[in-house]
């Protein structure tokens, strides 16, 4: 049953515990903007929330085309929300294409808000409808509110004298106004942000605000189907403190800046535009006050090489891309491994192989991260699990890269990069600094000197008198750092590089159980952005008394030193992954555990239900 049907009537208002709303329209209809404004208002209202922007690779697909539909989903509620929700309670469909492609996700009894003006013969045919679904009874299982939105909008923005083209563009704000009425959201934040966004075009701002208010007023006064009234979603109980909404790519960018400060290092961020990784470059290029230099290179290779050059000369070099771009960087990453320089390589994973699904999510670059280079160039790999988690993982990447003088691969993905969630803001002063050490003493210096504990090579930057030295890709003598083709020395250096990376396991936390107990019938082991779905699925199953726990791995290489022992404490292990089974092969090979896979590569995150079903079937078998 849809949440908007399953209501309790307290204080005369419809009360629901949680709701999923999806806005869907043409890729030029402004659905992402609509969704993010509704998200802001919902966060400030005090609900917990998670979002899922889902858009096509085409920037402006032909109007009315099914492949051009852009959607923004938000799940909000009075309890712990960690996914964007399985099923849709309220669908806003701006045209037939948006309806036909999204209807399958709407619960029976769910609410459909439809712009009937867009249901023209041409648009219906383009979407593949042979008759108008608003009229032919095919939507009888839902509660349908067809509104002539276009007409309403043109009327409401008339006083501002916009051209037809610009006037019609206010449609998204009109529907937003209506949905805000439905859930009693405050419009002032949207009003403020419109004024800010169109500061130089006040007539556009005014028209959009008028449309927003008109949509709200319409909902308030029109006769809507029985039972469609204002729904109240009680505020979520949250830890006290200051909050904001954050997307994964923003929190990752902030984490890198924070990491640079904690390491007391300037940052050189070199990147080449690629979906869905570019927003990291955009965010960081606007933060020059933080000793951050950004460089949009001519290609992926130049980007990683510039980052390594920057590290050589005493900055923290960072590069960022998505799978195909990381492939291009592979040779240079191996050079950074051979020369033992710090480097962070951020991979915001997307559907592959090749161009694949650029705007859709996947976690299929784990094998690439672990093995996708020539030679024995083992590297630390760490992964983020939620939008908020990206902040801490970025700091951790900086710590490992600089303390161990090694490239670090940091895995994010398209889902969490774009998705937002509320963040209880941390205080940077609570983080332990880890200042980078530069060699300055020429006495006994060689570029091969290293810390006997961590095995980290010494970092001597150009500009330091007496430490002039050469490094490069040719194998280096263990003692002097000079080039060496000696057979035994190569064995020794290869072993050393391996020992150094494996030894990082002694400097990372032991694996914890994120939900449940450290022993039992079943552990669901995940990594990356599957966190939310696994968390909710395990929570629901435990609520019913099932013996299942959730373990979420951040350190993909080296793995936490207790992981094998921990997993041995469960009768069964289930591993959901948005790939064909990459991490599971590592776990099976390393710990000889008969873990069971749950794989999905549809470009969409796991639904809670899918993980729940897998848990039940393993526990019942």
């Amino acid at each position, binding site marked *: 049953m849809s949440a908007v049907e399953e209501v309790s009537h307290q204080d005369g208002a419809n009360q629901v515990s949680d709701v999923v709303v999806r806005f869907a329209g043409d890729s030029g209809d402004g659905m992402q903007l609509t969704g993010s404004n509704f998200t*802001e208002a919902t966060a400030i209202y*005090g609900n917990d929330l998670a979002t899922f922007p889902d858009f096509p690779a085409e920037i402006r697909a032909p109007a009315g085309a099914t492949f051009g539909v852009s959607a923004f989903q938000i799940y909000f509620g009075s309890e712990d929300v960690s996914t964007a929700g399985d099923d849709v309670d309220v669908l806003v469909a701006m045209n037939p294409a948006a309806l036909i492609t999204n209807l399958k996700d709407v619960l029976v009894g769910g609410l459909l808000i439809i712009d009937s003006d867009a249901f023209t013969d041409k648009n219906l045919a383009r979407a593949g409808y042979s008759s108008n679904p608003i009229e032919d009874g095919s939507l009888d299982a839902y509660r349908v509110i067809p509104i002539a939105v276009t007409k309403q909008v043109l009327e409401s923005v008339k006083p501002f004298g916009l051209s037809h083209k610009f006037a019609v563009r206010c449609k998204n704000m009109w529907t937003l106004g209506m949905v805000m009425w439905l859930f009693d959201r405050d419009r002032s*934040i949207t009003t403020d942000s419109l004024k800010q966004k169109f500061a130089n075009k006040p007539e556009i701002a005014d028209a959009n605000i008028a449309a927003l208010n008109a949509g709200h007023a319409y909902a308030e006064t029109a006769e809507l189907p029985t039972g469609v009234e204002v729904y109240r979603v009680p505020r979520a109980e*949250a*830890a*006290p403190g*200051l*909050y*904001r*909404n954050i997307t994964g790519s923003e929190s990752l960018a*902030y984490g890198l*800046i*924070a990491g640079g400060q904690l390491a007391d290092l*300037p940052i*050189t961020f*070199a990147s080449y535009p690629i979906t869905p990784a570019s927003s990291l470059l955009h965010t960081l290029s606007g*933060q*020059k*006050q*933080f*000793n951050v*230099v950004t*460089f949009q*290179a*001519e290609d992926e*290779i*130049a980007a990683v*090489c*510039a*980052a*390594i*050059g*920057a*590290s*050589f*000369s*005493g*900055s923290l*070099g960072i590069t960022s891309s998505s799978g195909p771009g990381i492939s291009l960087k592979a040779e*240079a990453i191996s*050079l950074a491994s051979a*020369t033992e320089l710090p480097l962070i390589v951020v991979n915001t994973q997307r559907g592959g192989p090749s161009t694949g699904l650029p705007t859709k999510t996947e976690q299929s670059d784990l094998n690439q991260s672990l093995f996708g280079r020539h030679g024995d160039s083992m590297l630390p790999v760490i992964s983020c699990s939620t939008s908020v988690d990206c902040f801490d993982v970025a700091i951790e990447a900086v710590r490992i890269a600089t303390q161990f003088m090694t490239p670090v691969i940091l895995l994010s993905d398209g889902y969490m990069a774009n998705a937002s969630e509320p963040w209880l*803001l*941390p*205080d*940077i*002063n609570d983080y332990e600094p880890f200042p980078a050490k530069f060699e300055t003493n020429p006495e006994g210096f060689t570029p091969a000197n290293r810390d006997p504990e961590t095995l980290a090579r010494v970092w001597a*930057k*150009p*500009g330091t008198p*007496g*430490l*002039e*030295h*050469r*490094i*490069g*890709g*040719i194998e280096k003598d263990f003692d002097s750092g000079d*080039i060496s083709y000696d057979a035994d020395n190569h064995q020794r250096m290869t072993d050393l590089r391996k020992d150094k990376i494996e030894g990082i396991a002694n400097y990372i936390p032991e694996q914890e159980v994120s939900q449940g107990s450290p022993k039992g019938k079943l552990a669901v082991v995940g990594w990356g952005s599957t966190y939310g779905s696994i968390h909710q699925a395990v929570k629901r199953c435990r609520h019913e008394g099932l013996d299942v726990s959730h373990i979420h791995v951040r350190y993909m290489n080296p793995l936490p030193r207790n992981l094998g022992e921990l997993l041995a404490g469960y009768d069964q292990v289930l591993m959901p992954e948005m790939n064909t089974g990459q991490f599971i092969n590592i776990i099976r090979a390393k710990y000889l555990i008969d873990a069971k896979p749950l794989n999905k590569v549809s470009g969409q995150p796991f639904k809670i239900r899918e993980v729940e079903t897998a848990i039940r079937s393993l526990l019942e078998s």
Partner: protein
Amino acid sequence: MNAPVQKLTAKDYASDQEVRWCPGCGDYAILKTIQKLMPELDVQKENQVFVSGIGCSSRFPYYMNTYGFHTIHGRAPSFATGVKLSNPELDVWVVTGDGDGLSIGGNHMIHVLRRNVDLQILLFNNEIYGLTKGQYSPTSKVGTKSPSTPDGSVDMPLRPCVFALGAGAKFVARTIDTEAKHLTPVLGRAHDHKGASFVEIYQNCPVYNDGIFDQIKDKKNAADTRLVLEHGKPLTFGVEDRKGLRMNAKTLLLEIVTIGEDGVTIDDVVVHDETNKVLAQMLAGLKLPEFPEPIGVLYCESTAPSYTDDVYQQRIVVRETRGPADINDLLRSGHTWTVS
């Protein structure tokens, strides 16, 4: 940067590594000349960085007692850009070859020149791949017989200085490996130039392409085969500078004239102006046997802003405008709300 307190010598710039080029390689001469030049520059040794890619020439940094980074094939300009972005105070030299810099690394060469990153780029051109044992290169003449072109190469070579000018380089020069008297001042000018300085060095590979530049290097022919460029001086060459280049007003091409014949005087000869890009492009395209090959500074636009300076400047302005940066403030930017 401060001048060295104690005057260093060429020896101070030689590393303790045994030089491993083939006997007779032109790289030896270039190395010696650069080691001699270094103490004359107003830069402290610890502020100098040599960055290279892959190839014979790219072993260069190992032999310099400065900071050095031997990187990967074709990418030295990108590493050097990163070095310079991170620390604009450093004096950064890129050493590359015709294969490294113009084939696998051609794209980076275009962009490092276009951006005008403040570097010295020395392209050792021997018109052959040495380290991979003698295949033809993008600068090899048509018909070059090599292991990969046993019947002679058929593709057109590119002219490095034409390429550099096309990419927007602000300093373009050509010189010769074994001619220290020419090489030294050209490298000095390249160093003094703010921005990307591109220097093509004709370099002999005695093993795979021996004598490829002999016509120009041979003292007997040199007067007729090379055109020594000097800013403000007429473009004359030949025995007793009897020949010169004149601009044909009808074809808009340079043509060879003999002074004293057909009423031609020195006043008819084009005067070299290294700030004239059109002239530089014409000179860069001249080649034997039709024309003498120019050596010297073809083009120098000294007022162009350098990328690294501009990036640095932009940061200073942003920091001054925005005031002190605080991570906690950054995190708390945008809409926030309090749960009590």
